[in-house]
């Protein structure tokens, strides 16, 4: 610290020629700032090469894992055949398995992972806390309550369960926002209110589970863990539509979100409409998370880990929305593949694997982040 400090002092006390600090100012001006942009006729778009590379690699990883996952199951299909079938040149039997059974499942996995990753990145950025993800804040619990009501009280169909979970998640998100509102929503209050809501809803879920008969209870527990089993095209289309609307909306607001990370006051001073931005982004995050949960159940820890992992890869400050999204998709597909390889097809839902990964991640946080005092 000492040398730099004396430099600063020199430059301040100085103001006359010949001071070494002034000299170094001149030299420094030759150094380019490490911010790159593509510019053309008054337009300019920032470009972070490292982040771009990470995104490309993650997309490639997700696609490769998808092909492998499509080939995995009771009827293994070699990767080459999978690709040929996807191109429309496979034989009839493989075509049915790939296009009707496994492709939609993989697509649901990709979309759910992307939505959870993006939702998690938004929540962590808004709450300014690496643990402030939707599953910790009780959104998952809320979705679960909605689904359990459908399963236990109405013995609902898969579609009704998804609907119940969507409504449950949205209502919980709304409740958290309203309860945390007090002259604006402060990050910490948001987290703590979320935890309180989560505890209450967890108790309600426990009660619903005791009310169920054993068959329903077993169905409920599988749903609560998060699973991609049996997901088909009817889950793909609504998810895809929602993502097509929300993802661009969120990305347009990524820049104000970056300003928000420096504190409300700084963001205000820079001309960000703080509460409006925060409400819009939180609503989007709740929608993304709730619909992902409705499609696959509350797959734990993807929303928590994806933003953190991607951020460590890009080494860039800010919410890292796109990398988090790609990381979520890749993570969920790899986890699904791992659960099928480790326990056999459709034995244990993917949520078990992400839960284990999440546990390991938490321990790792314990070791590394605590020292930095960032949690």
């Amino acid at each position, binding site marked *: 610290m000492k040398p730099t400090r004396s430099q600063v*002092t020199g430059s*301040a006390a100085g103001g006359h020629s010949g001071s070494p600090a*002034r000299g*170094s100012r001149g030299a420094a001006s030759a150094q380019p700032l490490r911010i790159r942009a593509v510019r053309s006729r008054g337009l*300019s778009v*920032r470009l972070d090469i490292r982040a771009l590379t990470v995104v490309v690699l993650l997309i490639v990883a997700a696609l490769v894992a998808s092909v492998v996952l499509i080939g995995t199951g009771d009827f293994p299909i070699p990767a080459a055949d999978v690709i040929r079938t996807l191109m429309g040149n496979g034989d009839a039997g493989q075509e049915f398995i790939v296009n009707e059974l496994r492709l939609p499942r993989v697509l649901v996995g990709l979309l759910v992972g992307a939505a959870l990753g993006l939702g998690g990145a938004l929540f962590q950025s808004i709450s300014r806390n690496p643990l402030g993800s939707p599953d910790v804040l009780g959104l998952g619990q809320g979705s679960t309550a909605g689904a359990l009501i459908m399963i236990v009280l109405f013995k609902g169909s898969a579609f009704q369960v998804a609907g119940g979970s969507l409504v449950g998640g949205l209502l919980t998100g709304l409740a958290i926002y309203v309860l945390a509102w007090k002259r604006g929503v402060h990050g910490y209050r948001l987290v703590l209110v979320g935890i309180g809501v989560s505890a209450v809803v967890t108790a309600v879920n426990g009660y619903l589970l005791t009310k169920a008969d054993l068959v329903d209870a077993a169905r409920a527990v599988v749903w609560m863990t998060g699973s991609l089993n049996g997901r088909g095209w009817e889950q793909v289309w609504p998810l895809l539509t929602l993502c097509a609307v929300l993802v661009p909306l969120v990305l347009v607001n990524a820049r104000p979100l970056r300003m928000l990370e420096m504190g409300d006051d700084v963001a*205000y*001073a820079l001309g960000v409409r703080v509460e409006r931005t925060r409400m819009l982004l939180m609503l989007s995050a709740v929608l993304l998370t709730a619909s992902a949960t409705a499609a696959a159940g509350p797959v734990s820890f993807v929303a928590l880990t994806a933003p953190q992992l991607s951020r460590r890869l890009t080494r860039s400050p800010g919410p890292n929305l796109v990398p988090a999204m790609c990381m979520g998709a890749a993570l969920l597909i790899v986890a699904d593949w791992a659960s099928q390889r480790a326990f056999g097809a459709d034995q244990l839902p993917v949520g078990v694997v992400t839960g284990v990964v999440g546990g390991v991640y938490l321990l790792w946080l314990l070791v590394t982040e605590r020292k930095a005092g960032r949690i």
Partner: protein
Amino acid sequence: MTSAPPGQPVSPLPVSRQPVSRQSASRPLVSRPTDMKTTSRSASVNRLIADDVTLGYDQRVIAEKLSVEIPDNSFTVIVGPNACGKSTLLRALSRMLKPAHGRVLLDGQVIQSMPAKKVARTLGLLPQSSIAPDGITVGDLVARGRYPHQGLLRQWSSDDERIVRESMESTGVADLADRYVDELSGGQRQRVWIAMALAQQTPLLLLDEPTTYLDIQHQIDVLDLCAELHEEQGRTLVAVLHDLNHAARYATHLIALRGGEVIAEGAPSDIVTADLVERVFGMRCQVIDDPETGTPLVVPAARRRRATATSGGAVTTGS
């Protein structure tokens, strides 16, 4: 400290590179914001005015029917005892706090009704509570000050780059551009935040206790920087300061608050008297000439005297 009219460089700094600013005949370190009118404002109305405002949080009223004008091109410092409403006033002036009654005017318009980004291009604020995001570098943080000038398709123009670099140079943090903000010392970090506010390129800059938590060397350092910005670039600065002597030395215009009321305002040498200090801070003192600058210097009365003295010889203005 200085008698130079605002807007004219007192000690032009040697700059080893080409002048970059369009209107910079005098080679200022940071190009002036385009809508800044240094001396030629014809109207007598000042740009930033709090008009009959009542300020408070929830039910607690902090100041009632307070009117304050910030003289253009001044270095205005707001002083007063703890909880007198200094920071509250600053928050209201920077639209962070909406007055319960009355209005804050910026260039004749109610500040709350103006587009957020437009205000942010005119008026900058260095708040007390700022958070440096994890793993952000100095250059990146300062670059974020360009936000109000940017758009979705205008994310990082060559102007942005130039202004960010100039801001870092004039605050002396250019060498730190690639360092992480969390590794810096308190004084360096404060300079970085000031650089960010500078990059915003606003003719008006508000600073909320910019010297808090800094040791004396860095306090002076930051205040010198402010004076430099005021004198050489003609910016209007408004700062809340704790230290009365710092305020008297650096301010061109002083506002003394107590209990949400303006007790006195004007040039420090005109208004800082022992009587005023006692009225505002409830403390006996002598006011003498600062041997360095000739500005008023407040010397608290000794314990013995404070206990016994009446307003006799101990309390005089000047020496």
